[in-house]
C-alpha cells in the first residue's frame, strides 16, 4: 500500500509548452488558445479557472488528447500526448455513464478493455465502490441513481484505472449546492489518499480555491493564462475553511482578477 502511494505520487507530471489552438471557419481564423505555458507537478491539484469562452475546457481536451494543438505540445511524464488513453482519466460534466450498463459494469469498462481477469476487476471495482459509498448501488442502472451518485460513479470509472492524471471538466456544475459541497469534500478525501495529479476545470471561484493547490486564472480573446496563484490553505480542508478570513481574501483577489475578463467575454457575446 505504501509502495503504491509512493509510486503514484511520482508519476503525473504535466508539461504544457507553447500550446496554441485555432480553428478556421469561413476563411476567418478563430484563436482559442495562445501560447499556453505551464507545468503541473506530480500529485498536484491544479484548477483552471476562467469565464466561459476562455478555452479552459479546450485546454483540458488537449491534455486528454481529444483534440490536437495547432502549435506546441503537452507531455505527461515526458511522454508527448498524441491521442486519448486510460493514463489520463476524464470526468465529464454530464456524467456520461452508459445507460444500458449497471454502476458496476460502467466502472469496470476500462479494466475490461485492458483485459483484466474477472476476479481482479471485481476486487478493484468493489474497493472503489466502497470508498465512495456506492457498493449498495452496484447493480443499479444510471437512471435509478441521483446526479451525485452518477458523478461519483463516473469519477470512480476514471480512477479505477489508476491514471497518472485525473482530468475533470466542471464535474460538479450540474449538481445542487449541497450535493456539490459533499462531492468536493469526497473528492479531496480520495485525492489525499491516492495523490493522483488532478486538473480541475471550473468557473466557480470558491470551488477552485477550496480544492486546489494552485489556480491558473485564464483570460479571453484569445484564451491565455492570466495569473497563477498558489493556494497555501492547510490540508485536509473542511467546508468551514471557506468562511476563514484567509479564504475570503483569496476569493476577493481572484474575483478582481477574473472580473475584467468576464466583462470582456460578455462584450464579445
Amino acid at each position, binding site marked *: 500500500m505504501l509502495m503504491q502511494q509512493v509510486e503514484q505520487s511520482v508519476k503525473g507530471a504535466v508539461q504544457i509548452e507553447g500550446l496554441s489552438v485555432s480553428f478556421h471557419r469561413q476563411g476567418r481564423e478563430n484563436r482559442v488558445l495562445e501560447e499556453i505555458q505551464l507545468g503541473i507537478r506530480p500529485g498536484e491539484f491544479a484548477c483552471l479557472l476562467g469565464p466561459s469562452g476562455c478555452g479552459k475546457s479546450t485546454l483540458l481536451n488537449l491534455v*486528454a*488528447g*481529444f483534440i490536437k494543438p495547432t502549435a506546441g505540445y503537452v507531455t505527461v511524464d515526458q511522454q508527448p500526448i498524441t491521442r*486519448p*488513453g*486510460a493514463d*489520463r*482519466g*476524464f470526468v*465529464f460534466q*454530464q456524467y*456520461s455513464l*452508459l*445507460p*444500458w450498463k449497471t454502476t458496476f459494469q460502467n466502472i469496470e*469498462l*476500462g479494466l475490461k*478493455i*485492458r483485459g483484466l481477469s474477472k476476479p481482479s476487476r471485481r476486487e478493484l471495482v468493489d474497493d472503489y465502490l466502497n470508498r465512495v459509498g456506492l457498493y449498495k448501488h452496484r447493480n443499479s*442502472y*444510471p*437512471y435509478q441513481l441521483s446526479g451525485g451518485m452518477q458523478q461519483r460513479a463516473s469519477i470512480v*470509472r*476514471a480512477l479505477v*484505472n489508476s491514471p497518472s492524471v485525473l482530468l475533470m471538466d466542471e464535474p460538479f456544475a450540474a449538481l445542487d449546492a449541497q450535493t456539490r459541497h459533499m462531492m468536493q469534500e469526497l473528492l479531496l478525501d480520495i485525492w489525499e489518499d491516492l495523490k493522483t495529479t488532478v486538473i480541475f476545470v471550473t468557473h466557480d471561484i470558491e470551488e477552485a480555491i477550496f480544492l486546489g493547490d494552485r489556480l491558473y486564472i485564464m483570460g479571453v480573446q484569445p484564451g491565455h493564462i492570466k495569473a497563477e496563484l498558489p493556494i497555501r490553505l492547510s490540508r485536509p480542508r473542511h467546508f468551514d475553511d471557506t468562511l476563514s478570513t484567509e479564504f475570503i481574501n483569496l476569493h476577493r483577489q481572484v474575483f478582481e482578477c477574473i472580473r475584467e475578463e468576464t466583462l470582456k467575454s460578455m462584450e464579445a457575446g
Partner: protein
Amino acid sequence: MVLTEELNTPQDRFGNLLNSKHGTYILPLITTLLLFIGWELAVRLFSIPEFILPAPSAILAEIPQWGGAVAKNAWTTLVTTLLGFLAALALGVLLGFMIGYSKLANLTIYPLLIGFNTIPKVALVPLLSIWFGIGAVPAVITAFLLAFFPIAVNVAIGLATVETEMQDVLVSLGASRFEVFQKVGLPHTMPYLFASLKVAISQAFIGSVIAETVASNGGIGYVILSASSNFNVPLAFLALLALAVMGVILYSFFMVLEKRFVHWI
C-alpha cells in the same frame, strides 16, 4: 387500517390494474370485447344487411364452413410476410449502417431511398407480377419493399445520434474503434431498431396482402378478394379478423423482445 381502506376504492383498484402486468392484456381485451358488443348491437338495432356489414355473430358463424380455408390462407400470408420482413430486416440494418456511418452513403443512397419510399407500392405489384409471375414471390417482395424503409431510417438515426461524449468516454478508456461501436453505437441503436421493427412488421403484412389481392392465388388477400366478388361479406370479414389477430400477435412478440433487449428505457 385507514390506509388500506383508502386503497380499496374502485378508482384505486382501476389504477392498480392500469399499472399492473395483467392490465397490459386485460384492458385491450375489454375494449375489443366492447367494440364487438357495440358492433353487434348496432347491426341488430339498425337492421344493417349482412352484405354491407355483417354482425360479429354472423362472421363467427362462418367458421365451421370456412375456418379451415381461412387458417390455411392465413398461414400462407404469415409465411410470405415473415419472409419479406426478414429480408427487410437484413437489408434495412445493412443500409442503415451504411447511411448512419458513412457520409458518402448518406449523401448518395439516402435521397434515392426517400424517392423510392414515396412510390405507392401497390403500383409496383402489376410490374412484379410481370417479372415474377402470379404467386408468392410478388407478395414477399412487396412486403419487403414496405418494411425495409423504416428499419433502415431508424438504424441510421440511431447510429448518427450517439452522444460524442459517450464515445469520448470509451476512447479515453483506451477502447478501439470497434469497441466504441460495440459498447456505445450498437446498444444506443437498439431502441431505434426495435421501435422500427414494430412498424415494419405491420407494413410487411400490408405489403403481402396488397400483393395477394392483385397478383396471387392464395393468402388472406386472395380470400378477401374472392369472398367480396361472391358477395360473401361475412367471409371477407373473417379473413380480415384473422389478419388483425396475426398482426397483434406479431406486434406483441416484438414488444416483448424489445422489453428484454431495451430494458434501460
